[in-house]
Each structure stands twice: as structure tokens, then as C-alpha cells.
């Protein structure tokens, strides 16, 4: 019986652990070089940009300091004219604080409650309300003693009650405190029954003030008093 003897097979060239490591090392170095080149390019461009003078200014610059001084004085006056004159109200909705000011003098600092920022969606999905206190410049447009609250639709939706057809059924007394100052679009600075919640953002956009502070505010503010809210 003939025995077939298999010739010893040629060992297949296999990548050794050493060459794999070498390959990875080279690839890593290439990647690092590319990355460093990108970083360097970014830094060089940025550095040059920071040094470059802005030559694109289209404003012709007056060369005389006398002209500039008088122009700056006029601009400062114009800015002053834009600002509130006499008494004005500042409302900080982040810290829930109201300031009654005249110039830089503060005559009242009151803890208030501003809008909750919450969202209410009507169960049918047709209407939605965001309860933010509006921001910007407003003015006192109306003043009321013993104001009655004419409940809007959202108040009934929130309470799960049907919206009344008779407008008289919307009126609620005693909810807004002794006084209310309207500053447009149905927003008011008014009193509250929930004094323990003053200092928190819990309203539907109006600004609630404690009784004593509200009285001072009502007496001081006139129609047209500026209200700056941020």
C-alpha cells in the first residue's frame, strides 16, 4: 500500500502581531498629524483674524474730535429722551421683584408673582395658552378700585368647567385685591388672596402684588406711567 505523503504546506503569510501594531501606530500618527494640521490651520486663521483691522466699516468716521464730542453729546441726549420720565415701574420676572423708581431713586421694592410660563391646551386641542408675563416696555392704561375679574375661557378650561354663555357668569369679585393697574392686552398688576405665594412664578401672566405695596403703587402711578418688564 502506497502511502501518500502530503508535502508539508507552505506556511501562509499571516500578519504578525508586531506588524499589526506597527500599522496601527502609523495610522495613529497619520491621523494625529492631520488633526494637528487642522488645529494649526484653525489657530493661524483665527489669530490672523483677531489681528486684522476691520476694513469693512462703511461708516465714514469724522476725523475731528470736536465733531465727535458734539455728536456723542447729541446721541446721549437722544437716549435720555427715550428713557422713562418721572415715575416708572420695573418688574423683574426672574426674581419676582417690582421696583417703583424715579430716575435712579427707588421708592418701592415689592415682592410679586409673575407668569408661570406654563402651557394649557384645550382638551379638544384647538386652542393653547402660554402663561408668560409679557416683556418689554408698556404703560399703565387703566386703573381700578375693587376690580372684578372677568374670567377668560382658559380659567374655565383649567377648572374643568363649561364656558358660560352669559358674560355675567364670568365675573368674580375679590380675586384681584383692592386695586388693579392694566398695562395692555388684558394684563394687570393686581392684588392677591394667595400672599404666601408671592415671590414665585405662578400667575397666568398678570403680576400679583401684596396689599400694602399695591396701595402705594396705585396711589403713585398715573395713566401713562411706564412699565418696563424683563
Amino acid at each position, binding site marked *: 500500500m502506497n502511502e501518500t505523503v502530503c508535502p508539508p504546506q507552505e506556511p501562509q503569510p499571516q500578519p504578525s502581531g508586531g506588524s499589526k501594531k506597527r500599522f496601527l501606530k502609523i495610522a495613529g500618527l497619520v491621523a494625529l498629524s492631520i488633526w494637528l494640521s*487642522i*488645529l*494649526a*490651520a*484653525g*489657530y493661524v*486663521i*483665527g489669530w490672523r*483674524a*483677531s489681528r*486684522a483691522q*476691520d476694513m469693512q*466699516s462703511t*461708516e465714514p*468716521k*469724522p476725523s475731528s*474730535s470736536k465733531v*465727535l*464730542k458734539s*455728536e*456723542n453729546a447729541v*446721541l*446721549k441726549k437722544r*437716549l*435720555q429722551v*427715550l*428713557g*422713562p420720565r418721572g415715575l*416708572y415701574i*420695573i418688574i*423683574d*420676572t*426672574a*426674581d419676582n421683584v417690582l421696583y417703583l423708581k424715579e430716575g435712579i431713586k427707588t421708592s418701592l421694592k415689592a415682592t410679586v408673582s409673575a407668569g*408661570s*410660563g*406654563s*402651557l*394649557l*391646551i*384645550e*382638551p379638544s386641542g384647538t386652542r393653547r395658552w*402660554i402663561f408668560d408675563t409679557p*416683556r*418689554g*416696555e408698556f404703560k399703565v392704561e387703566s386703573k381700578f378700585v375693587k376690580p372684578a375679574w372677568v374670567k377668560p375661557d382658559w380659567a374655565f*378650561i*383649567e*377648572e*374643568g*368647567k*363649561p364656558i358660560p354663555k352669559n358674560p355675567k357668569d364670568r365675573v368674580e369679585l375679590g380675586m384681584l385685591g383692592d386695586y388693579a393697574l392694566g398695562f395692555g392686552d388684558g394684563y394687570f398688576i393686581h392684588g392677591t388672596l394667595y400672599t404666601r*405665594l408671592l415671590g*414665585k*412664578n*405662578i400667575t397666568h401672566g398678570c403680576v400679583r402684588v401684596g396689599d400694602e405695596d399695591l396701595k402705594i403703587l396705585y396711589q403713585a402711578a398715573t395713566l401713562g406711567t*411706564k412699565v*418696563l*418688564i*424683563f
Partner: protein
Amino acid sequence: MAFYKLLFLCLFLAVRVEAAPTPELDRLVRENNLLKSEHQLAKTPQVYVLFDLVEKKILVKARGTVLKELSIDSFGIWGKSIQVKPLTLLKKDALIEPGRKEIKPAKEGEETTSELEVLQVGEMPARYRLSLDEHIWLYVRPKAEGTLSTVLSILSSLKSYLIIKPLGTLWHALLGESFTEVVLYLGENDARSLYWALQEGSGCMIWSE
């Protein structure tokens, strides 16, 4: 001949000295730009913000009146120098953005819940990015206090130096645009207050050296 050369050189230098703006004139030009920009923003009834990097403070303003002043602990600027002009806040980005809480309307005959679903300033992020026009990215970060805050600050700095500064600059340069990164370090409460005060679309100005 040498005399004429010297005379010409003196005249040339005199003209050069005459042409160079004095520090006073430069200050007046910059003040003029600031006032013009502010006047443009103050003409509207909107609230705007002045990032005054010279005095290291942030002024929330309306109609030229300061409503709130926040102090900047430290800051850094990278990229194209910022010219004072009215800018618009395009976007506020934070890792965890505060969402509006939804009021669940009570069902008919059901008592309204006494739980308050409200958004407070304390829920605002203290670490965020404000994207202004002109490709200005303004990062607000709280002063590093405590281990976690320090670690986060180191990570933010690494991200800034290894990614944002070089790649942002390069990317915008490829698009033919400028890029500026400003990093502001504020007290944690001030950072949250600023996030609250700023609304997308608000006017801004940056006053820097």
C-alpha cells in the same frame, strides 16, 4: 542733497504722525459707534442686553434704562475682533433645556389640583451657548466652584481649545465667513438670570477693547 533727504524724511514722518489716530479720537469713535448702536436698539420697546467686556458687566436694558446689572467674573475672546453694533440673539442652546410645564385641565366636577406646575429661574441652565448673528458664539459658564463644576469647566475648556476654536474658525473660513467665540464666566445665579432675561430675537451689543 542729504539735507533734502532729511527734510523729506521729517515731512513724511510728520504726515504719518498726523494721520495716526490719537487714543482720544479712537475712544470717541468707539463711543460714537456704541451710542449709535444703542440708540438703534433703544428705539424699540424691546428689552436688549449690553455685554460690556471693558467694565466686565452685563446690562439688561430697555429704552436706554438699566433694568438689571450682572457682573462678569472673567472672559475670553477668540477670532475676529467684535465691532460694536446691534446684534440679534438667534438661538439659546443648553445641554438640558428647560421645558414648559403643561397644565392638566381638571375634568368636569373634579377639584383642581393644588400642585403648582411652574417654571422658576432656578431651573434655567447655568451653562449654555448664545448664537448671535455675524457667527458670534457666546458661551456662558458658571464660575468653577466645587469638584463637579471644576471638572465640567476643564472639559468645556478642552472642547473649546480642541474643537470649537480651531474647527469653528476653519469651517467658517472655508465658507468665507468670520467666526468669534466669547466665553463669559458668571456667578451661577447670574448665569441663570441671564438665560431667563434673554429671549430668542432679543437685541444685543458686545462692547470690547
